[in-house]
């Protein structure tokens, strides 16, 4: 028993480290209640350690916490390279977000509560780490809740403005209902299969006939919960409001890490529970009761279209980026909809790139908001001249988000389209490219304001700390390099493709 426990614990070292860091943060919060500036560093150290072990854990491929009642391959967690890839992404994002938070004036103003802030961040990280490797519906539900509960609080954490609290409340109610629906779906699925383990469910589905109506309904309900996390239309409604209302560091975190975790969860859920078999060329044939492809394509088209078209109208940059992140979720869902390793690869690459460019964009928005106190697009007028570095960097991030060469965003878009066209989903591809043209409008609009518009008064140049420039460069340089030489990025993703299961 204990041996098992130790073996299992070895498999989840990153999670354990994060949990310990969480406790340490709480502890240090109590010890150093005068000056809490050390706390973020504890978090950073802990996350780096976790990252180290996550990278170490890349080649691992086994189940952890196998249940005694069943054979070995039915674990609560699946520790595989796919999960580790996302764990690495999430941990990197978390580290970036901690630096991000340190630079953010919003977070600086609540310094005395920074212990709780970082503790909750750790809670989110932990939730996400479990999400990406969860292979049991209960773990899925609980890890989603762990993530959610932390983020509900964080969304309203600063309490600086009305909208913080409002974001928090909306997020809470929306999240509670979504997870409630998901739970109900889980209970129905449990009723049909008598199990909550994805592999076990897969076995049941292969071998017995089930009521398709109930089955579909429960899957849709479960998808509500996941769709809520990845802000897929029509489960996205919270996204713009919460993104706008939250502290910008949390917005960035939600838009990248929590979405990554959601996607990892979705992919694992589909791939583990509903696959019939995987061909040599990496495409999946699915158990036929539920047409995942059509379903996700519908969601995906809705998502990208709504995200892009509504983003056109936004004047608040944070809100615009929220819609843009919805749109990107749509593109990534396209990668999922292909239902092949190729699509998954595209999603993985897209996340890597998306992390760079989205955090970069948010970071610059934050830097500007720090100084000007505004995220309004009109306040960006002529900013490109006042602060050329920020202007150019933000332009590059936004152009990369548009998916224009020679930036990394193009490569990830290319991979998605490679997958989609190879799957012969031509109509979908056409809709997607038209969407990407539409997206240009709002991204370029920011550039227009920064460089083309006339300002009432010339904005003052922003003085940047060296650390801030370094932070931007850390994100900017890979965005450019990966656009021109993307072999390492794709090699990395390709080596992390294996998902446990059939």
């Amino acid at each position, binding site marked *: 028993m204990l041996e098992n426990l130790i073996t299992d614990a070895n498999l989840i070292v990153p999670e354990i480290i994060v949990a310990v860091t969480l406790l340490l943060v709480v502890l240090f919060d109590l010890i150093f209640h005068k000056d809490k500036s050390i706390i973020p560093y504890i978090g950073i150290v802990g996350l780096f350690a976790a990252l180290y072990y996550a990278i170490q854990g890349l080649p691992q491929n086994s189940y952890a916490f196998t249940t005694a009642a069943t054979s070995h391959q039915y674990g609560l967690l699946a520790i595989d390279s796919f999960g580790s890839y996302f764990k690495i992404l999430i941990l990197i994002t978390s580290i970036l977000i901690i630096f991000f938070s340190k630079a953010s004036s919003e977070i600086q103003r609540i310094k005395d509560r920074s212990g709780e802030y970082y503790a909750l961040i750790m809670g989110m990280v932990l939730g996400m780490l479990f999400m990406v490797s969860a292979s049991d519906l209960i773990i899925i539900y609980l890890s989603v809740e762990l993530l959610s509960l932390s983020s509900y609080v964080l969304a309203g954490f600063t309490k600086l403005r009305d909208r913080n609290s409002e974001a928090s409340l909306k997020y809470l109610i929306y999240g509670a209902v979504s997870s409630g629906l998901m739970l109900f779906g889980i209970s129905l699925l449990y009723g049909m299969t008598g199990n909550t383990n994805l592999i076990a469910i897969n076995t049941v589905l292969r071998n017995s006939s089930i009521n398709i109506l109930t089955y579909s309904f429960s899957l849709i309900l479960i998808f509500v919960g996941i769709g809520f996390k990845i802000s897929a239309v029509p489960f996205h409604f919270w996204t713009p409001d919460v993104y706008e209302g939250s502290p910008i560091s949390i917005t960035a975190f939600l838009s990248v890490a929590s979405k990554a975790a959601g996607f990892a969860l979705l992919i694992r859920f589909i791939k583990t529970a509903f696959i019939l078999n995987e061909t040599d060329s*990496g*495409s999946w044939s699915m158990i036929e009761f539920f047409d995942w492809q059509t379903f996700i394509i519908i969601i995906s088209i809705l998502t990208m279209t709504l995200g892009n078209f509504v983003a056109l109208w936004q004047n608040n940059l944070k809100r615009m980026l929220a819609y843009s992140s919805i749109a990107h979720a749509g593109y990534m869902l396209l990668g999922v909809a292909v239902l092949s*390793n190729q699509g998954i690869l595209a999603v993985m690459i897209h996340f890597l790139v998306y992390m760079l460019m989205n955090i970069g964009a948010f970071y610059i928005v934050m830097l500007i908001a720090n100084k000007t106190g505004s995220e309004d697009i009109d306040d960006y007028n002529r900013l490109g001249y006042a602060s050329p570095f920020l202007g150019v960097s933000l332009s590059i991030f936004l152009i990369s988000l548009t998916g*224009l060469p020679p930036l990394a965003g193009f490569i990830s878009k290319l991979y998605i389209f490679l997958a989609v*066209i190879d799957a012969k989903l031509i109509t979908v591809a056409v809709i997607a490219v038209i969407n990407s043209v539409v997206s*240009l409008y709002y991204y370029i609009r920011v550039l227009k304001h920064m460089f*083309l*518009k006339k300002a009432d008064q010339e904005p003052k140049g922003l003085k940047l700390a060296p650390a801030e420039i370094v932070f931007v460069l850390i994100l900017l340089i890979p965005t450019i390099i990966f656009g021109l030489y993307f072999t390492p990025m794709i090699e990395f993703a390709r080596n992390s493709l294996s998902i446990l299961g059939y």
Partner: protein
Amino acid sequence: MNGFPILSWITFLPIIGMIAVLIMPNKMEKGIKLITLVITGLQVILAIILLSNFNYSAGGIYEASSFQFIEKFRWIEISGLSWLGTFKVDYFLGVDGISMPMLLLTALVSFIATISSWKINKSVKGFFALFLLLDTGMMGVFVALDFLLFYIFWELMLLPMYFLIGIWGGPRKEYAAIKFFIYTLFGSVFMLLVMIGLYFSTTEVIADGSRVFTFNLLAMMDPTNYTTNGILSPLNPNNYRFIAYIALFAGFAIKIPMFPFHTWLPDAHVEAPTPISVILAGVLIKMGTYGILRISYPIFPQITLDLAYYIGLFGVINIIYGGLVALAQKDFKKMIAYSSVSHMGYVLLGMASMSTIGINGAIFQMFNHGTITAMLFLIVGVVYDRAHTREINAFGGLANKMPMYTGFVTIAFFAAIGLPSLSGFVSEALVFVGAFSSETTRILTMFGTLGILIGAAYMLWTLQRIFFGEFNKKWDDVLTDIDFREYAMLVPLAIIVIFLGIYPSAMLDILNTSVNTLVGFLHSSAATITKMSM
């Protein structure tokens, strides 16, 4: 060229220049301008070196071995993808008779445009940095032989162009810039899809002997490389190939710009600053026709042959429609912008002929239009710089006030009209001869010849309104004859226009072998593909 990567140099030299410009402090405007001038000057020199080493008898088009100055190495290689085998992208540059004139044109027009930018004084650094980036994009498009590389260069010039119009442009610059951007992007995203479709339909043998999918344009042209069920493979019984052709063509057509996708052009031209109008008209819109010749024609030969009539039809519509609309313009620059629409119609018509003479004429027209329109836009720039208006009716009688200027205007206008002994005539005549000799485009050609008349009408009318008649005393102080800098821009172009008018073989000999190869390849490959798909 003894292993000297001259094409890479000519393509990426501006990037080096851009970095240098960015390093320079803001205040050293002269220095920034000089760097740009030196860089573009070096480009011209490299282009001349290329020309002097150019083998006139090498065909190129579909045959890697007869391309020249080839640079090819594996840029991206990712193996072990179970569904793709190896994902690879080559850095593959090369030149043949079709790209050589475009390369010369790009180098020349960039150089002239640099001189023309001398008076830019707003955010000088930004302007020249973007200008040089644009230069790389344009040059790259004309030398790339790998579709992905081509696409990257193609998109690369969008953003600099957006800013160059949007920041340094006229009153409605933002509108014009975004319109340009959106139109072009709209075209190019479909190009992206077609590119991916083609990627999955063609394989190429790589070093280890296995066949992998490829972006290599030359491999895509070889019917034997098609996969059995690739989405755009003729072996695959679906009509995607046709749709893909249309999509690809639309992408290029927007750039040309072909009716009815041309509406971005007048706006962009009118709002853009003079050097950018020069680049836009001189080089950028050639990318569309170049792309059609380089990609659409050899990769989809049988569809090209089937649709020749429609290509020609749109060409003729462009000629007549563009001309008639130009006739109604009151803005000097807009008039010239529409004349570009009209003149690009000749290119389309020539291409539609599918004959050596016609395509020769079309490419020659591309080059000539590049030089002539560059001249025309510079000419507009001259009066606009001085009078700050482009209203045609605001002027009159400039011939006496600015005789040398009028001289250049006359050359440029008559070249645009297609007066013999100037280069425009030869290309237009060849286009007509070629198009008429093809059964499909014969009747169209007859309508197309109306363009000769309409062109003369709007050009001469404009000439009359601006240069003849009574001089408007309002401009007495501002309008002075052209200065040294303007000579430096106009003289080389005028010399080229006259020289090629008298001795067109200087250019046509460069083209000829490749065009013959292309025409031959079109027919033989179409036959092969038809046989395959049966």
